[in-house]
């Protein structure tokens, strides 16, 4: 029994589930290729240490190579690309795109999936905010093409929480606890911690902070009544610039979150998350990570990335049915060479792999295909 058991947290993808992912991936891959992005593939197995700074609820799958080296199935797709860049002299700036599988172990028996297909881009060597804007355009394109404008883009800033807390001159421990409470929107804990901060000029802002997420109009409304700590104003300005740009697409829902949880430690600037009412998790996430290459002993390069969860996107996308019904073509063995050119000439034609016409008919019916039979002198007759 054990040998045919699928390991926990993994699944086979069959029929429509797998096909949806193909359709969604193919469209996005073509989009990036047409836009002049360069494709990159990296192996699914990497050195364990590459992911030292990667935060995850669970340790990764471990793999041992014959030399006994401690390897892992990659839990992230950006770090391997950073490794590639730090090992090569690729001329920068450059726009890269990738499609790959990553492995992140879900809590045991939680129904979560440990294997995820992700398609994404990395814009390496661009410090301009136009790189973030390019990502907004891509998210909007996906939204229009796949999600009938039901995608909400959430925009935050990876450094905002730390920047504001730094200005309070509180202990590192209280700083960390407050950040944790904000990221997890733990209001009772935040309120209790705020009492330890005591009276300060920032207090009116601090009191409203956990609820400071919503549309630009809603945020601006709240910010009218409280003063944003000075040190954070440039970051907020950046947030508003990008959010206003995103909102210039009138059919795009955009929200700002002034305490948006940072998906990974390597983010240093604007962060994006995309979701719909039909998804319980983020369909898209990404942002700016200017220090990542420096962490890997390479020259510092500004960079922005975006990852699309293909499993989540495919699950909420309505995929069009085939426009043409498949056709199975049956001919006697001696007549096969006559039908070969016809099959090649029609994209929805294939051979009926049966030795009798009745068997061919049954196979076509089972596959939802039309059966056409080759009659010498008459041609293909639908049957």
């Amino acid at each position, binding site marked *: 029994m054990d040998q045919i058991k699928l390991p926990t947290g993994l699944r086979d993808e069959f029929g429509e589930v797998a096909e949806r992912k193909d359709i969604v991936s193919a469209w996005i891959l073509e989009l990036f290729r047409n836009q002049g992005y360069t494709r990159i593939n990296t192996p699914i197995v990497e050195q364990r240490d590459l992911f030292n700074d990667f935060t995850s609820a669970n340790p990764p799958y471990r793999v041992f190579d014959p030399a006994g080296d401690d390897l892992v199935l990659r839990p992230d797709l950006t770090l391997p690309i950073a490794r590639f860049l730090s090992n090569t002299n690729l001329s920068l700036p450059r726009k890269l795109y990738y499609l790959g599988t990553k492995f992140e172990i879900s*809590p045991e028996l939680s129904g979560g999936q440990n294997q995820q297909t992700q398609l994404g881009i990395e814009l390496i060597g661009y410090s301009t905010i136009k790189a973030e804007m390019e990502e907004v355009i891509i998210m909007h394109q996906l939204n229009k093409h796949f999600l009938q404008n039901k995608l909400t883009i959430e925009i935050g800033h990876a450094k905002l929480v730390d920047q504001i807390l730094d200005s309070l001159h509180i202990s590192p421990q209280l700083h960390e606890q407050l950040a944790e409470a904000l990221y997890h929107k733990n209001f009772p804990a935040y309120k209790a911690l705020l009492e330890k901060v005591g009276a300060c000029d920032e207090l009116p802002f601090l009191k*409203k902070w956990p609820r400071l997420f919503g549309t630009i109009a809603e945020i601006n409304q709240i910010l009218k009544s409280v003063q944003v700590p000075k040190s954070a104003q440039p970051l907020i300005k950046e947030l508003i610039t990008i959010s206003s740009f995103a909102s210039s697409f009138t059919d795009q829902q955009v929200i700002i979150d002034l305490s948006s949880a940072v998906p990974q430690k390597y983010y240093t600037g604007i962060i994006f998350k995309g*979701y719909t009412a039909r998804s319980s998790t983020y369909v898209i996430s990404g942002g700016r990570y200017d220090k990542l290459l420096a962490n890997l002993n390479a020259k510092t390069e500004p960079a922005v990335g975006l990852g699309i969860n293909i499993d989540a996107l495919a699950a909420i996308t309505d995929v069009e049915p085939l426009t043409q019904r498949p056709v199975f073509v049956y001919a006697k063995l001696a007549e096969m060479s006559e039908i070969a050119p016809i099959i090649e000439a029609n994209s929805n034609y294939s051979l009926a792999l049966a030795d009798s016409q009745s068997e061919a008919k049954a196979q076509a019916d089972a596959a939802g295909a039309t059966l056409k039979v080759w009659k010498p002198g008459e041609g293909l007759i639908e049957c």
Partner: protein
Amino acid sequence: MLKIALTKGRVEEKLIPLLEACGIDCTPLVNKERKLIITLADQYQFILVKGDDVCTYLRTGTADLGVVGSDVLAEQSNLSQVDELLDLGTGRCQFIVAAKRDFDWNQSHRKVIGTKYPEVARRYFDGKGEDVEIIKIAGSVELAPLTGLADAIVDLTETGTTLRVNHLVVHDWLDVITSRLVANPVALKQKRNEIFKLVDKLSAVIGANEYENI
């Protein structure tokens, strides 16, 4: 419509008066008989579940909000991934460490701890820098020291009566436990105003006025 995973039993009973005070007619919830899905005021769909399952419903997006004891959140903290919106202040009790009166806490052997909350127990003893063996027990935890299954227990107590009846003495007091209103992070973003409306109503009722700012 907000979908709310509600811990059935005591948490549910204590929530009803709060909802009533918010002007939400709870008759369908009170007279639910064996139904497990109940809609109130055409706005709130309550799904009655076990406390341990509340975060599962939220994590998978099956429910937007949940009402659950903070003991469950403490035990599931590493996998709960939920936002905590409000301390309802109900169902108050406290985590304790307790043992038989004659138990010597300074003895040299590795202590055996019986508990329904292995994560909470592990964090407590890790914090003390003490290596202990934890045994998970499904119920009647007080029995463990009495029968010799464990040296001490980490458990919840409301009044301490059960401990006293079983001749157990509290060695240390840990976190106070109350019912919490929790949310799925994506639902909170998408139904922000609807959710905060409920949070504000409940805050007003439980007298947590200072919440209006947060």
